């Protein structure tokens, strides 16, 4: 009997020979499951992968499974492109497997009582700080800021200027290009605001707590301790290495990168809280496509289950810097040893209990863009935070009307 | 060696008529020159014979065979273009052999023919050069060689020498003519240079505004031009055409014929030392000759005298000519019997 062939799209969003790892994993899987042939297809960035997947879907030949952003769930459902994972969960073992993932990751994978995605390469936002800079500023290098107030206070002390008054080192830096809403969520979450409901058809941008969070961000810039304007995501780690920023907020996926490139002692910590602690999760889930044959879907399910097995998840986490997706993965010897040698790697895990879903709604990209535009407008000073959020809310309401 | 016949050939582009009912007979093995001013239809006639242009009316016969509707390649003609139309990317050998290779003539045979043609035209040493590395005269010979290797029965040439300088042109004329006679080619040759026509042709066909003005042997044409157009077009300096007014040369007392409207006199037939008083307006020294431009009455007479003559502008001279040197034309420009 001919093997069931499954095509599998995946994006690459971190450095290193990722395609090699994936090919290796697929080969291992095929050795273990001779009846299935996995065909991994590197599809570019996340954005390009979904473009590819949906273009393929629309023309009738989608992949069998694909890793796509967890926030793409609603879009994929609306396009009628994917099937719930529950369809394949039959045995008790399957159920246990599905229940083994961190709750924070499942928030983005479930809606309407169904599970649509399986967490795979997931991350969350954490804070990195430069211990040397702390020392220079007379701060305790081993005690990161815990609250908004402290963050602002520390940042003020950490900001250095040269004789001409030009800033040479910013106190804190929160990137705001590309996907500012995600970074913004570290402020809204800690300010105890949730931006979207579970059904993905209502948002609360004009919630005073949201506006307050944005005000805080804008104020950091106004205080001269955070770079003005929109801060580029891509150069933020470099800014940190170059000591242009003493504290940065970025994904856990940057851990390996920072470890390799920071020429100074650095710390990783949870996001400073305000009303509560918290951070958004991010990254990609596995989805199974509807237009594949049942046999292929079944095979894809086996593959997904295999690849998210704790052993593999632990390995994947260490190789890529992503957060391992289940408690059990952190229980493996390999990851335990890794955590001992490199405790910063465990911060993300510790933060997961407080984490919330990454912002996602129906017509996700459009609604997100409305929010992003508002944020950038406020950060570049063309709109007040309240006005920016009001406008974004109005636009989002208009877009989501039909999903109510 | 073939004869060519045009019967009632006409050509019009839209409403503009380039040729009107041309009838022409070119005998096999003769050299026929189409002569005429710019735009008179020489090239058009030639191109119709070649098949590069289709006639609006009339027939083209080569060797008695009606070729009016055949494509150029099937007419058995070769052609030399005004600017030679050598293929700039091919060397001399390949240029000459182009037609042979197109027609898939067997290699040994082709090489033999190329070598022969190159020999004939003194190109043997140049076979590997590109056209851009040749002088004008050499290019001209290559074009000729290309036309010859085809061993076509008819060779057509459109102002092949007009891009060469005077000396080279002179030399090439002789060579061309010799070659034509040696190979017994039938040549139709276009030029607007009457000296070229006279020195080369067996038959000169003088065209004017799409019509044949006169077709004759060079000597006949020179000796008895049929019209004032022919008279003034042929000969250099051109024939003097003096307007007659009441039987006299206009503006003077010199008596001429009462019947004619024009008196024609060739410059070389007018001599210094006669009884017609004239004033020298200007002179032109050419080494062997001295050309005098003189005024007689209101008319101007050009005189060709020896280069050694010492005549200056402004001088008064007396001119004379023999009786049989006079040509008479009526008011429409047609020749009158003497």
């Amino acid at each position: 009997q001919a093997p069931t062939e499954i095509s599998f799209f995946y994006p690459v969003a971190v450095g290193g020979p990722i395609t090699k790892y994936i090919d290796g994993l697929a080969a291992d899987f095929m050795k273990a499951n001779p009846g299935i042939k996995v065909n991994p297809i590197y599809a570019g960035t996340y954005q390009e992968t979904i473009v590819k997947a949906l273009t393929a879907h629309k023309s009738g030949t989608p992949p069998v499974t694909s890793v796509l952003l967890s926030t793409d769930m609603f879009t994929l459902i609306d396009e009628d492109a994917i099937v719930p994972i529950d369809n394949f969960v039959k045995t008790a073992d399957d159920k246990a497997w599905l229940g083994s993932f961190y709750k924070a990751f499942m928030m983005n994978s479930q809606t309407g009582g169904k599970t649509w995605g399986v967490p795979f390469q997931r991350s969350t936002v954490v804070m990195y700080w430069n211990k040397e800079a702390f020392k220079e500023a007379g701060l305790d290098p081993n005690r990161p800021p815990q609250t908004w107030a402290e963050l602002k206070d520390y940042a003020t002390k950490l900001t250095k200027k040269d004789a001409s008054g030009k800033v040479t080192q910013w106190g804190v830096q929160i990137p705001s290009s590309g996907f500012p809403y995600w970074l913004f969520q570290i402020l809204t979450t800690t300010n105890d605001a949730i931006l979207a409901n579970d059904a993905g058809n209502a948002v609360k941008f004009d919630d005073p707590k949201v506006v307050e969070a944005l005000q805080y961000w804008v104020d950091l810039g106004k205080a001269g301790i955070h770079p003005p304007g929109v801060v580029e995501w891509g150069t933020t780690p470099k800014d940190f290495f170059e000591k242009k920023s003493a504290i940065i907020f970025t994904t856990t996926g940057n851990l390996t990168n920072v470890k390799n490139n920071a020429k100074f002692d650095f710390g990783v910590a949870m996001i400073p809280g305000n009303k509560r602690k918290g951070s958004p999760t991010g990254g990609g889930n596995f989805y199974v496509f509807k237009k594949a044959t049942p046999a292929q879907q079944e095979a894809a399910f086996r593959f997904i289950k295999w690849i998210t097995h704790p052993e593999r998840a632990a390995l994947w986490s260490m190789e890529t810097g992503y957060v391992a997706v289940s408690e059990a993965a952190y229980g493996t010897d390999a990851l335990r040893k890794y955590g001992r040698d490199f405790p910063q790697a465990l911060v993300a895990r510790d933060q997961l209990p407080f984490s919330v879903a990454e912002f996602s709604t129906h017509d996700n990209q459009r609604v997100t863009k409305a929010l992003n535009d508002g944020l950038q407008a406020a950060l570049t000073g063309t709109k007040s935070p309240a006005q920016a959020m009001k406008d974004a809310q109005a636009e989002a309401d208009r877009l989501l009307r039909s999903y109510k | 060696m073939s004869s060519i016949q045009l019967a009632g050939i006409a050509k019009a582009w839209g409403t503009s008529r380039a040729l009107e009912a041309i009838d022409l007979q070119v005998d096999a093995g003769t050299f026929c020159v189409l002569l005429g001013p710019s735009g008179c239809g020489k090239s058009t006639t030639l191109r119709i014979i070649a098949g590069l242009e289709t006639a609006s009316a009339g027939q083209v016969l080569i060797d008695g065979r009606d070729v009016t509707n055949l494509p150029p390649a099937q007419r058995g003609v070769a052609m030399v273009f005004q600017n030679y139309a050598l293929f700039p990317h091919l060397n001399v050998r390949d240029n000459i052999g182009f037609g042979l290779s197109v027609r898939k003539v067997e290699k040994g045979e082709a090489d033999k023919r190329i070598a022969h043609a190159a020999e004939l035209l003194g190109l043997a040493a140049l076979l590997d050069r590109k056209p851009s590395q040749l002088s004008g005269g050499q290019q001209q010979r290559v074009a000729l060689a290309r036309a010859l290797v085809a061993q076509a029965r008819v060779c057509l040439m459109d102002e092949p020498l007009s891009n060469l300088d005077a000396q080279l042109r002179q030399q090439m004329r002789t060579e061309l003519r010799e070659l034509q006679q040696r190979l017994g080619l039938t040549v139709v040759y276009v030029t607007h240079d009457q000296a070229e026509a006279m020195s080369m042709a067996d038959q000169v066909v003088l065209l004017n505004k799409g019509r044949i003005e006169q077709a004759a042997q060079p000597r006949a044409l020179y000796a008895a031009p049929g019209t004032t157009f022919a008279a003034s077009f042929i000969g250099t300096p051109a024939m003097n055409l003096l307007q007659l007014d009441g039987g006299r040369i206009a503006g003077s007392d010199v008596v001429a014929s009462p019947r004619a409207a024009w008196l024609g006199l060739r410059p070389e037939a007018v001599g210094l030392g006669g009884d017609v008083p004239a004033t020298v307006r200007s002179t032109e020294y050419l080494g062997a000759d001295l050309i005098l431009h003189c005024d007689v009455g209101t008319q101007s007479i050009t005189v060709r005298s020896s280069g050694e003559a010492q005549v200056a502008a402004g001088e008064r001279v007396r001119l004379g000519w023999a009786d049989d040197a006079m040509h008479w034309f009526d008011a429409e420009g047609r020749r009158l019997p003497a």
Partner: protein
Amino acid sequence: MTRIYAWLLLLPALVLLAAFTHWPAVSTVIDSFFSAPKGARKAVWVGLDNYRGMVEDPVFWKAVVNNLWFAGATIPLSIGLALAMALWVNERIAGRTFLRMAYFTPTVLPMIAVANIWLFFYTPQYGLLEQFTSLLGLPPHNWLGDQRTALACITVVAIWKEAGFFMIFYLAALQTLNPSLREAAAIEGASRWYFFRRVQWPLLMPTTLFVLVNAVINGFRMVDHVFILTRGGPDNASVLLLYHLYEVGFKFWDTAYASAITVVLVGVLASVSLFQVFVLDKRVHYK
């Protein structure tokens, strides 16, 4: 007979053009009158709704305005620079070979990679531009992160990419100008500027026109670098029409609206080049 022959020669090209240009274009026009199919919902006829949506879409208008700015700056500047470059390397200037190569290099480098290098140039604080301006004692600036400068930044990259390409066309044209024209002008005592203004420039007009059309088309289709440098931000400050089209079509999956934008874009470009081919072309011909 020759007619059939000619059409046979054209056939392969025309078939491919029809299949991959004309037919898709036509079907795009058709799509623009339907709603976007989404999941199980089929496309339905909506008339001009998509176009009405476009009129009401502030980002679309922002993109239009930005694109006009972008095109308005890239076109004259890249052509002007190309011309200056061509004039220089057409002369016996010191280091001519190096100059030609330097100017032409951007054409060969892939935009997708080179945009990242430009990202470094624009980076605040330690970016090359900042290092340079701080040498001059200018205040620091967040070039890409400021609404006022983001568009200018991507414009500069576009000019950089294009000028060398256009230079080649000008250079080719300059080389075909009769050298004795310059000598004639020199004898009359014309200065270089006068000679350029009265002779070279008018004689380069056909080339300018060709380049102009290319520049206009590129002015509406160069977006590779936007993906990496600004993604249209901050707050749509650097969004261009084709980028907006991409977002609408491949991020929002509103393919119907995307079709409507495509129709408008294509309409603009088509009229520009038809104008060139059939009107201007006849006017600037000297030969």
